[in-house]
């Protein structure tokens, strides 16, 4: 009977997921990832669907309270109107926020975006799990009932208890006789993959743009991590020169200076050659920039991409944020390549609301 709430709960989850599409967009754009300080946990609000009712707005609303403070002292964030009802039940204060693991969040994100699961190719090292029916057990759903075994057992029992009449061979299984198929999770090693994130941290990128890039990179990172076990990541930041950094630095650095995109591509290429030979690794590279590049450098970049990087990577994603200072030309230059090659995606991210769509463009290719 415990399934009763289970059904209502499932229904709620489904609604939330169907509904979250719009809400999640807002949610991601709020940049709440900054609140993520600990290793694995992030504080997010409980999913809730508020049924609309005639309610009072904030303006002009008032109430009575208790405590210290002079007239005029602010009380902190607006307090929700206390809609008290509910059978004299007394949950000790309402919970507003709860921690959710990143894995859970990424799973929700994947479902909301309707992203295809990226299928890892061949090779070893990445672990994936699969269900396999291996045995039987006493309890389970009727759809998994093992017909033959169940009746065999029923027959055995009836013979043993001398209720079996060979003249009227009727076998009626009772609850104890029933056998159900059961499964085991089988872990299977699969392919290896690396994700290389590159970010333009030059002076033309304002704080807001860096913020957008960080949020997007963070979510892609989270999502890919959730779907592959044992994945590697490399982070590159560049202005006029590129350097390899760790995750923390990648998300927190603020540099300034000119822009030479080729520097990052060269470094990425070097990295791939040295550490991740493409015949053994699946390589995903993402590059974020405002599209403002040193004039002479563009041709060099395109050559690098076309001849060195693209043949080696599974997917190259280029995300361009809109900048007041930058010309945003690089996106245009890339269009030619995008038309030619399959494994390059370019996407524009004009503002925070566009992040969700952009992630979808990147990962939607399913490579």
């Amino acid at each position: 009977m415990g399934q009763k709430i289970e059904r209502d709960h499932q229904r709620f989850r489904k609604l939330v997921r169907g509904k979250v599409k719009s809400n999640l967009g807002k949610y991601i754009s709020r940049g709440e990832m900054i609140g993520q300080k600990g290793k694995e946990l992030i504080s997010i609000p409980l999913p809730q669907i508020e049924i609309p009712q005639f309610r009072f707005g904030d303006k002009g609303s008032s109430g009575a309270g208790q405590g210290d403070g002079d007239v005029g002292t602010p009380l902190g964030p607006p307090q929700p109107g206390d809609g008290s009802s509910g059978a004299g039940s007394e949950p000790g204060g309402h919970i507003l926020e709860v921690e959710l693991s990143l894995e859970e969040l990424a799973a929700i994100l994947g479902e909301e975006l309707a992203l295809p699961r990226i299928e890892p190719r061949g090779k070893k090292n990445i672990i994936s799990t699969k269900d396999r029916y291996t045995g039987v057990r006493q309890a389970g759903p009727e759809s998994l009932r093992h017909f033959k075994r169940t009746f065999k057992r029923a027959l055995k029992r009836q013979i043993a208890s001398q209720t079996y009449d060979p003249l009227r061979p009727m076998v009626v299984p009772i609850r104890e006789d029933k056998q159900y198929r059961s499964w085991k999770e089988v872990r299977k090693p699969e392919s290896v993959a690396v994700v290389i994130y590159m970010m333009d941290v030059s002076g033309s990128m304002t704080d807001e743009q860096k913020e957008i890039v960080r949020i997007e990179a963070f979510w892609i990172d989270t999502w890919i991590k959730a779907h592959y076990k044992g994945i590697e990541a490399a982070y590159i930041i560049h202005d006029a020169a590129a350097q390899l950094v760790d995750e923390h630095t990648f998300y927190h650095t603020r540099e300034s200076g000119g822009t030479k995109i080729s520097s990052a591509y060269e470094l990425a290429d070097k990295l791939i050659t040295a550490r991740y030979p493409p015949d053994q690794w699946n390589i995903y590279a993402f590059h974020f920039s405002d599209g403002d590049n040193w004039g002479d450098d563009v041709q060099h970049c395109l050559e690098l991409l076309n001849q060195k990087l693209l043949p080696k990577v599974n997917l190259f994603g280029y995300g361009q944020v809109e900048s007041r200072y930058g010309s945003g030309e690089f996106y245009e230059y890339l269009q030619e390549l995008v038309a030619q090659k399959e494994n390059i995606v370019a996407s524009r991210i004009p503002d925070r609301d566009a992040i969700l769509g952009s992630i979808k463009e990147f990962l939607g290719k399913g490579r």
Partner: protein
Amino acid sequence: MNTPYNTDLPPDLRALKEEIEGYARSYGLDFYETIFEVLDAEDLNEVAAYGGFPTRYPHWSFGMSFEQLKKGYDYGLSKIYEMVINNDPCYAYLMRCNHTLDQKLVMAHVYGHCDFFKNNAYFAHTSRKMMDEMANHGSRLRRYVEKQGEDEVEAFVDRCMSIDDLIDVHACAIRRRDDSSRYDFAPESEEDESLKLTRFKSKAYMNDYINPRGALKAEEEERKKLKDQAARNFPERPEKDVLLFVIEHAPLKPWQRDVLSIIRDEALYFAPQGQTKILNEGWASYWHSTIMTQKGLHPSEVIDYADHHSGTMATHGARLNPYKLGIELLRDIEHRWNTGKFGKEYDDCDDLQTRRKWDRQLGLGRQKIFEVRRIHNDITFIDTFLTPEFCVEHKMFSYAFQEQMGQYVIESREFEKIKQRLLYSLTNFGKPLIYVVDGNYHNRGELLLRHEHSGVDLRLDQAADTLANLQFVWSRPVHLQTVVDEKPTLLSFDGSEHTNKTLGEADDPKRNGPAKTR
């Protein structure tokens, strides 16, 4: 009750129950038989999510509360100590893993609630067989789900829930009008007694002067107009029970009508618990505290008891805690009636010293609070017994929303202001007052509601969605008269489009009203 859970009361708890029940009765508490059921946390969360009724109809919103309760419990943020159901017999749930002392405290608290349910006037109308009725509601709704499909029924229930607060909580006590029947077609009598005109007695030759024809004619017309008006007004008087009006007059399918009345019944059943939150919790807390400290506590349990009791009474931030406010106010009343600090003589006394030392040795306190628990709800309770001294002692203040700062600030510490704000926040559960004004608006069967504006605007986004839900149920366009930014405004939804019209005095909707009823 046929419950799927393992709810056996272990012998130690049964002994405790008998002990506490004995104490409660010895104080004069009067309650229905109370059945305690012991549940594991998970099951308790489930029951709580259903508002205490495990047999309730299925709906995702219960799943939502379940998730909240479960996450709150799993992450150690909150815990349900107890839950009581207003029913005969009363059902109370205990959490299996609670400490014995907690169980004792909870039991004492529960008997307070049970006594309140049975004796408070505002609960008098509630069904005491709600456990069974809820189960009936559940099976009816499940039947509709099987017949009409889950999505259809759910969508309709969602809409009903959106308007389930549009009820008249006092309807159970005051008969505002006769039950209307949809099959009531009594013909109107032409020769109405009331149409007889005022004629003064006069000699025949003076008649034209004493009862001038012009005046008679004018009066006749006036009467007619009044009568027309009465016939035209539908409903006759503004109707607070929007839900009932819709149930009676909207073109609903039978199953929809039934679902709507289920929602209304349950809303009416739960309403008194909202009306008496402060008094009810105060009463129960008063009794758990009295019973435990005077009789129930073992010396070794005192520290833990004090810890848990103060946890319940704590105020979080500036929020008023109904437990705290209720128990303190009840204690204040008991003290005042014990010492005689009430009545004209005391009120007229200006000398602070005398007032403070006032003691007439009346000893009427206990008797008084029993009376309070019988006849008061939160509003009358606060209105009658909140005193300036009490407000000062408990550091009460009133707060208001400051637009520039975008947050609430302490507005005043004056008694009148505090009381006014507090009462206002309790009025109609702190929700806007909405009436049906016209069920045949524009003579096109449209529904006109009026929001009794009292200084606070509605949240427009939600109002629009709610209106849309109401429109679906009513199936003709619906309108809501309200005030937005100090301008009278008519919000409308006609099934596809929201309009938002500022009303000038000139086109008062009443004036171009229809001439016929439907």
